[in-house]
């Protein structure tokens, strides 16, 4: 394996948990039974490996952008596929919702009104957090994604996870403690 190829493998490996968290956050609870975030990410990374020749020439920010766009396509394709199977009108609505979410996410990540250095720094922090979320136990991660990435209230989180509100609050707090620990001491895990 050449240097640039191993670099690419390292970059893809680094972005895997980030993409996973993004996919998990994007997929609404109603679709969770039909769509598997890890499958979508796996498919995306495989496509990246197939396009390695093209990707080795890019820096990590461009690779990340390529991966996001591939993940978006895969996710939308998967939802469309579900729709043809079940022909559910609500799914059609969700496709446009997810498309809008992706475009807003892209706008946020490539903010033209903010200076490039600032964008880079903020995206770096964001990636660190999204990737650290994957080191958390499943229930803590799910609760944090619902609470902080999907903006659900404690009550809604508790309902979705079929827990009492106090149990959900404990879960969230412990999840945050652990996440903060990962962020404050990177490499600990």
């Amino acid at each position, binding site marked *: 394996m050449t240097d640039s190829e191993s670099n690419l493998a390292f970059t893809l490996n680094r972005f895997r948990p980030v993409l996973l968290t*993004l996919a998990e*956050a*994007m997929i609404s609870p109603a679709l969770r039974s039909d769509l598997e975030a890890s499958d979508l990410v796996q498919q995306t990374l495989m496509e990246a490996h197939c396009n390695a020749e093209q990707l080795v020439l890019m820096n990590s920010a461009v690779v990340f952008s390529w991966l996001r766009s591939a993940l978006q396509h895969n996710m939308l394709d998967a939802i469309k596929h579900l729709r043809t199977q079940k022909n559910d009108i609500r799914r059609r609505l969700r496709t446009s919702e997810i498309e809008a*979410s992706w475009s*807003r*996410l892209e*706008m*946020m990540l490539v903010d033209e*009104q*903010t*200076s490039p250095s*600032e964008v880079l720094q*903020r995206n770096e*922090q*964001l990636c660190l*957090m*999204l990737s650290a979320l994957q080191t958390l136990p499943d229930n803590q991660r799910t609760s*944090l994604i619902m609470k*902080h*990435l*999907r*903006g659900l*209230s*404690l009550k809604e989180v508790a309902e979705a996870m079929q827990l009492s*509100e*106090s*149990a*959900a*609050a*404990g879960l*969230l*707090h*412990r999840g*945050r*403690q*652990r*996440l*903060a*620990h990962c*962020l404050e001491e990177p490499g*600990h*895990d």
Partner: protein
Amino acid sequence: MTSPHFRSSSDGADDETLAQLERLAESGSRSELAPSSRRENRTEGRTLEAVAEHYRLYNLIELLAAPVRLALAADDSPPQLPEYESLEEIGRGGMGVVYRVLHRKLQRLDAIKVIRPDRLADISPESVRQMQYRFERELRLAAYVAHENIVPVYHVGEVDGRPWFSMQFVEGVSLQDLRANGLLAPDQVAVVMEKIARAVNTVHRHGVLHGDIKPHNILIERETNRPLITDFGLAEFDLCFDLQADEIPAGSAAENIAGTPAYMAPELLHAAMQPAGLREVALVRSVLSDVYSLGATLWATLTGRSPMEFRDAQVAVNSRSGKLPPALLRICQRSMSENPALRHQSAQEFADELAQWLNRPRWNQYFPGLRNLLWMIVAPCLLISNLIVWKLMHEQAAEFWIWSIIFAGYVPLFAVFFRSQRIHFVSDSARRELWSIWIGHAIGAAASMISLRLLLAQDLSRMIPAFYGVWAAITSVVLFAKSGNFWTAYRWIGIAWSGIAVSMALMPEKSPILFGSAAAITCIVIARGDQALAADAQRLSR
């Protein structure tokens, strides 16, 4: 993997307390910790520790996750407000989106401005709440002030965490748009800024500061050309956005700053750079900082440059703004003084100075037809008629002919003035003054002719030179008088004519030639000088 530190604080609060803290964090009222949680915890110290820990972690993750959450959940569609029917988005600024809406009950077109939540993502929720509080307070105060140059605010509110307000829908363009499309004539700018300054003064008298005066916030109504100022209380939101977007570390390339900071008084800019920037700015804002922004807006609109350039290169301003009327430049310089004590002490004073400049006499620029006639017809006529007088004097011609030729010199002059009446945009007062002053000149000349004839009886060789001396003196007085309302250079021409009047006594036999040449030269100088002034006026009004 949890560190001992985290475990201990987690033990400090049970799940029920955590749920309460979680709910408080969601509602945003962290300061009022429910008393029950105090009772349930063994010691107050541990409770406080747990609260602090929860607060820190919640905010840390919230702040990091906010951009993604807003991308996933944010909705740029107009907020659903029961009393309004949303029509279309009409503008999008750094901090807010403006929609044109229809008030359902009143069937009236309003504009609503909604703060974009994604712009608040990087700011701590605490600061956002403080900003919202101040925003609402100032808008409510501003809504009390009714002024024809202030966009009336109708309602203030918050929907889904997005502060919004509704105001009159103004059909027109902003001063910034006009500025971007090319320079405006100084007179137009001064009229707009005088009205805006008076409006700002009115709100100042009600104890409200605008805080964000800039060309972007001044609208010109299309039908009436009425300038209106808008966006009260938005200063902090805008500043917050601009500080993030523009990064203004001290000594940076300041001319790149386009938004609010460029129009901000130096003391505010200094405060904004402090660690607790926004709070500092709120404390330092004053009437004088608004006066600075008024001056910056005036300067930026007149010159098309960023006010930052003014601040950076004050010395070079004089040379670079060459064509800027000096009086306006002085107003800009005073209002944009680094030291607030040197600025106009109120928006009223700023407006008064502008009004003074606007009411200055400036008629000489509006006689375009006159200029060419003056040097093409009047000048040669005067030269020729006086040469004829000189010739007739030498040939000792009849007195009647000499006086006839002398007074014939007024004919082309009055013919030209008559011609100017057909030029519709010559102001009436200017025309009246022109006629009365030169008719006065002719009457004075006639009166001196009569008195000299009575005094010197038949001695034509002394009478004519004496008349020319008096005639030149009258001309000198007339030109001097004109310097007040017309072109200031008339003063110097008037002085020259006094000199000519005196020199005529030294060479009496040459006085007609002297007078004729001086009159012709005067006509040419006035025509040329006038032309240069008018060209300037035309260039600027384009």
